[in-house]
């Protein structure tokens, strides 16, 4: 009797794993609507399991530790794409299976982190710049990065809880690149930071709009998607692209080197590249979609918003983060110093 049950159980387990293909997606939190996964399963029969992370570092550590298997799709940002390619953690995509590739904005392809897009296709992109609550008289005056250093902002500022995001502010203020590789320049930038950190009420990269909407802070350096949602809830919140420059990012769909379900992973990527699917994602999470026909399907208010789709002259001031190589150590030392005060 016991034996028979056991056999039934085993048969069930085996059949379920053979019949239904399963896909393991590792993505940022608050980045992909559940119904997209359900619809994909309805259409293809492939069940998608999604787990989430809130920093590239956490994703990278896990993928690396698992020997680039365990997940079929990961979504690293620009600098981590470069790093993961360099360390052999990603596999080349089979472009013949990506029939919707032509929908992507050519301005976002062929960037330095993966010049031929052999390993990555853009999922979403956006900027990191300054949101101000104009109801606060001091915050209403903020126009540039340099303004963040003003002592009047004490206790009113939110910065990302992210090493490169914070150090990048000082580098841009000095007129340098976000990807500065000279340790001496990084150290110089780091010396500027205590004066801006003194103004910081909190560091947050999870849901920075919350503190802005609760009026805990009046100025926040955050992602454009968060800023757009915040400004929709409180029209007094404005998003500023500082004249000194700002950071641009692309989060990219990639397949880890030893992924098990490569075929299904390609199908899922191609599915996400469909205009109507990309539009639904960009409607729910208001970052910028790299999918040109998808943009036309969006709410005209979103399409016209310079927060989500900045004009070209603004875009020209932005810079993508790339992998720093050995210079990373200088950034890490600086970050430790800032966090210890």
């Amino acid at each position, binding site marked *: 009797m016991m034996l028979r049950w056991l056999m039934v159980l085993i048969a069930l387990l085996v059949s379920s794993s053979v019949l239904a293909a399963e896909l393991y997606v590792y993505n940022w939190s608050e980045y992909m609507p559940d119904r997209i996964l359900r619809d994909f399963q309805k259409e293809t029969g492939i069940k998608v399991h999604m787990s989430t992370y809130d*920093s590239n*570092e*956490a994703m990278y*550590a896990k993928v*690396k*530790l698992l020997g680039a298997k365990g997940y079929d799709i990961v979504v690293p940002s620009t600098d981590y794409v470069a790093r993961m390619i360099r*360390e052999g953690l990603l596999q080349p995509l089979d472009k013949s299976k990506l029939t919707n590739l032509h929908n992507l904005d050519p301005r976002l392809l062929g960037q330095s982190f993966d010049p031929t897009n052999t390993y990555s296709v853009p999922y979403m992109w956006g900027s990191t710049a300054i949101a101000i609550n104009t109801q606060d008289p001091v915050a209403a005056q903020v126009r540039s990065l340099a303004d963040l250093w003003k002592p009047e902002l004490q*206790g009113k500022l939110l910065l990302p*809880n992210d*090493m490169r995001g914070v150090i990048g502010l000082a580098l841009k203020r000095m007129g340098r690149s976000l990807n500065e590789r000279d340790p001496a320049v990084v150290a110089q930038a780091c010396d500027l930071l205590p004066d801006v950190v003194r103004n*910081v*009420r*909190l*560091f*947050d990269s999870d849901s920075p709009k919350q503190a802005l909407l*609760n*009026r*805990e802070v009046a100025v926040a350096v955050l992602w454009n998607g968060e800023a757009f949602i915040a400004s929709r809830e409180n029209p007094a919140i404005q998003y500023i692209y500082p004249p000194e420059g700002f950071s641009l990012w692309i989060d990219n769909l990639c397949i880890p080197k030893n992924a098990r379900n490569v075929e299904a992973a390609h199908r899922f990527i191609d599915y996400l590249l469909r205009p109507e699917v990309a539009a639904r994602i960009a409607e729910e999470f208001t970052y910028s979609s790299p999918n040109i026909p998808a943009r036309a399907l969006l709410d005209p208010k979103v399409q016209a918003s310079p927060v989500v789709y900045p004009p070209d002259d603004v875009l020209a001031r932005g810079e993508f983060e790339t992998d720093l190589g*050995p210079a*990373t*150590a200088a950034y*890490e030392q600086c*970050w*430790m*110093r800032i*966090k*210890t*005060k």
Partner: protein
Amino acid sequence: MRRDGLFRRLVIAATVVWMAVFGVVPNLLVLGASVSHPSPTTFLSPGFTLGNYALLLDGIHAQILFSSLKLSAAVTAICFGLAYPFAALLARAGRRTRHVLLVLVVIPFWTNSLVRTYAMTVLLNTSGLVNRVLFALGLIDAPLTLLYTTGAVVAGLVYTLLPFMILPLYAALDRFDPRLEEAARDLGAGRFQVLWYIKLPLVLPGIITGCMLVFLPGLGMFYVADVLGGAKTMLVGNFIRDQFLVTRQWPLGAAASTLLTMIMIVLLLIYWWSQRRIHEGKLDV
């Protein structure tokens, strides 16, 4: 009788295997990592060095350790101050009151502590309950800055860890035989003498257990510092997490983790010493 012996052996064997696989082995791995060389591409490279420990006691890192130890000591002291009167009351209360109070102590555990920590932000924020009540009472005329301060971190830790101080204190005080106190008073001891020579030594193991259960997590609960402190306060726990996930200096993180284990061993030794005093020493009344 034989079956009983077999059952006993099975239970013990299961526990030993469990402890070995999930307790001893991971700790040995951490210990091994803490003496390995750091490596920028592979997390760590095997070898033997004490450099990570030296690095831990150097400049910035020592500063983080020290301020976290200080914070956790303050949390432990506050917990003790709040828990002792409550535990004493509990030990003296009638059966029914005691049950109700104990259930009240345990109820918060039904909700995940991370969720409870987030709930505290709702109480402490600018337009939160605390500010509103103070405002309504006319005690303040502008909202206080409560959230994202060290004070909020301390409050969050005290709130989360208080039951861990109450329960061992209660257990110790409950076991304390009040007749010893009466006898001492009959023999002419003053209040202070009773407390110092009779009560304290007998309750000490409970106090140490409570302090241990509060002090160590007080060093480690990184999410409380992140959620309530605005990621500005670094506990040893935040430091360890950052070494593993952000800067990927596993050996340094492992060394910090081992240091926490060593603190625990010291506290356990003190506990053992206080227990032995009761059972073998002059205190054997």
